[in-house]
């Protein structure tokens, strides 16, 4: 056992040495939290209720998976609207249709004052939405389900029509003189993703192919795009369906020695920076912040003033095509996580 003790002691010594060495290396004079704090010190006046209506409780139930950047921005918009409108805001999510419906049911039994739901899996949600409207709870649908929203009894729908967004991408690719494009889907079997690529295919004059990648494994996403670009040298445009994947595509292009332009759906700080530097062509934004913010605000307007927006048709929050010239302005907003 003596040998074992020395082994453990040696390991401890090595670990201590690593820690000491890294601590000695000290601080970074660039970037990091300190730089962010300096930026934040300037702006700081959000989050006070601006109305005197009673403190209603609104709940939102989405089909988001765990740790999805997009839904985080939606939530941010909803929370800021809730703070302003004196709303107690609740949020829950599940990427399983059945569980999402159960979450809605639990909010109904909690007797919330209004509900915001997504209809990514419309059939699973149908009964839950009907139950809510029967209980007199106003419902607004956001993001997905523009086709079913009215039929299921929701007040209005706020979101982007995925097919329309795809069509906008096809047109933008035409305007940029692209001939052969790749549509990178990071979730196999996601209806919205298929609609985007199908929409792009419809308006795009050239040829468009789908490529499915494993969205939970970033190095694999990169290698798959790399492989595709090597296999088909004629590809001159790559469209990713989520902001984090645009960067993987940029690196894949570099390694594969391809000349393709990288474009993407959705926005984040890296995408904004990429647009500014010219490593990305354009981004299609559906303004998730707006989807959350407007949903809460419209429900408040409905409760307070019986207002409804959209005239029975979906209120579109996108597609907004963002290029180099808008990027500088948006970058700041992406860094604080609202764009």
């Amino acid at each position, binding site marked *: 056992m003596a040998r074992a003790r020395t082994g453990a002691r040696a390991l401890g010594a090595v670990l201590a040495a690593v820690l000491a060495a890294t601590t000695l290396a000290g601080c970074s004079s660039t*970037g990091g939290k300190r730089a962010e704090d300096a930026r934040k010190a300037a702006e700081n006046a959000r989050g006070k209720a601006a109305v005197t209506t009673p403190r209603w409780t609104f709940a939102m139930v989405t089909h988001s998976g765990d740790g999805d950047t997009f839904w985080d921005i939606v939530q941010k918009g909803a929370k800021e609207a809730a703070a302003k409108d004196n709303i107690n805001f609740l949020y829950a999510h599940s990427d399983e249709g059945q569980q999402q419906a159960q979450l809605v049911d639990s909010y109904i039994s909690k007797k919330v004052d209004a509900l915001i739901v997504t209809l990514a899996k419309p059939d699973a949600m149908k009964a839950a939405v009907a139950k809510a409207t029967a209980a007199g709870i106003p419902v607004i649908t956001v993001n997905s389900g523009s086709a079913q929203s009215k039929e299921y009894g929701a007040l209005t729908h706020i979101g982007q029509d995925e097919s329309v967004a795809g069509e906008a991408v096809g047109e933008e690719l035409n305007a940029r003189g692209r001939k052969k494009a790749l549509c990178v889907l990071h979730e196999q079997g996601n209806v919205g993703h298929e609609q985007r690529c199908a929409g792009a295919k419809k308006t795009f004059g050239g040829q468009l192919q789908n490529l499915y990648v494993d969205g939970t494994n970033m190095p694999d996403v990169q290698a798959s795009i790399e492989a595709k670009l090597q296999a088909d040298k004629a590809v001159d445009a790559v469209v990713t369906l989520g902001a984090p994947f645009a960067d993987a595509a940029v690196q894949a292009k570099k390694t594969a020695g391809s000349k393709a332009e990288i474009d993407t759906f959705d926005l984040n700080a890296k995408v904004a920076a990429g647009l500014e530097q010219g490593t990305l062509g354009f981004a299609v934004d559906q303004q998730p912040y707006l989807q959350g913010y407007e949903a809460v605000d419209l429900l408040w307007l409905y409760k307070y003033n019986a207002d409804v927006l959209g005239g029975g048709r979906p209120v579109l929050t996108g597609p907004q095509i963002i290029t180099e010239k808008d990027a500088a302005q948006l970058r700041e907003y992406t860094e604080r996580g609202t764009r």
Partner: protein
Amino acid sequence: MSQAAPPAAPGGAPPAGDERLLRTSLPRRLMGRPELGSVVGAVAVFVFFSIVADSFLQPSSLNTVLYAASTLGVMAVPVALLMIGGEFDLSAGVMVTSSALISSMFSYQMTANVWVGVGVSLLVTLAIGAFNGFMLTRTKLPSFIITLGTFLMLTGLNLGFTKLISGTVSTKSIADMEGFSSARTVFAETPLFGATVKSTILWWAVLVALATWILLRTRFGNWIFAVGGGADAARAVGVPVKRTKIFLYMGVAFAAWVSGQHLLFSFDVVQSGEGVGNELTYIIAAVIGGCLITGGYGSAIGSAVGAFIFGMTSKGIVYAEWNPDWFKFFLGAMLLLATLLNAWVRKRAEATR
């Protein structure tokens, strides 16, 4: 306590008169290696895609395949060792993401040189590995339960902490911080002979060599085979079963740290929800590479061949430009075929012994 029975480890000078230690001819010895079947499978997959996909044989394509295999292979090595030792680690995939998140957020929040974050991440990740091993040996619960618990806890911690600390579900970019470029050289892209190669390929090669040496040439290697073959028998002949298992879990943690840093320094922001499901891919690579699910048998080189088969298959489908709707089906069928071939060759090899 030093004399552990080495069930599958060759080497050492055989004293005359013991038939178990007789010298055997080279082909005979090759036939007995656990990775033999997977090598045959790898050759078959390679030849197959060389024929059906035109661009598969280009040097740049092979480089891409190698990269895809290496990101998986780095993790498959310690996972294979752990399987030989008779245990699983379901937390391995998420641990990679945890490790990347820790170094990124520590550096960012402390505005510290990124190497500080990298060091802290190493310590914390090793501690998670040690926790797995410690809980396993202390509670005597199956590793499936212990590491499933760790898997879920880490998944929650990744999301919870990231949201709590950065306010969003992904980390902030640390690309403009000091030490980033040197860390990038070590973990993401390393210049080598005038070209730039993905660092995971080098880490992979080193880890395979190191693990092979440990398995075949050291006493610790014998302990691994012994605890996987039968923990009680091993304990009876003086093998420190608990310590061996804890070290094996720490080995997995170390590789998770390497993979995590690669993730961080390749893409400089980390999504907190990533990594779920990858633990199965590591286990698959080890199994294709000839590790027995029941433990006690397998090799590090086999895990590398398994990772290579996986890399070739997943990227070969793209090179072959097959209809993507069927992607997962092709992948599954190829993997099944490779494993069946593997098993068949091994049976033949054992029959002719």
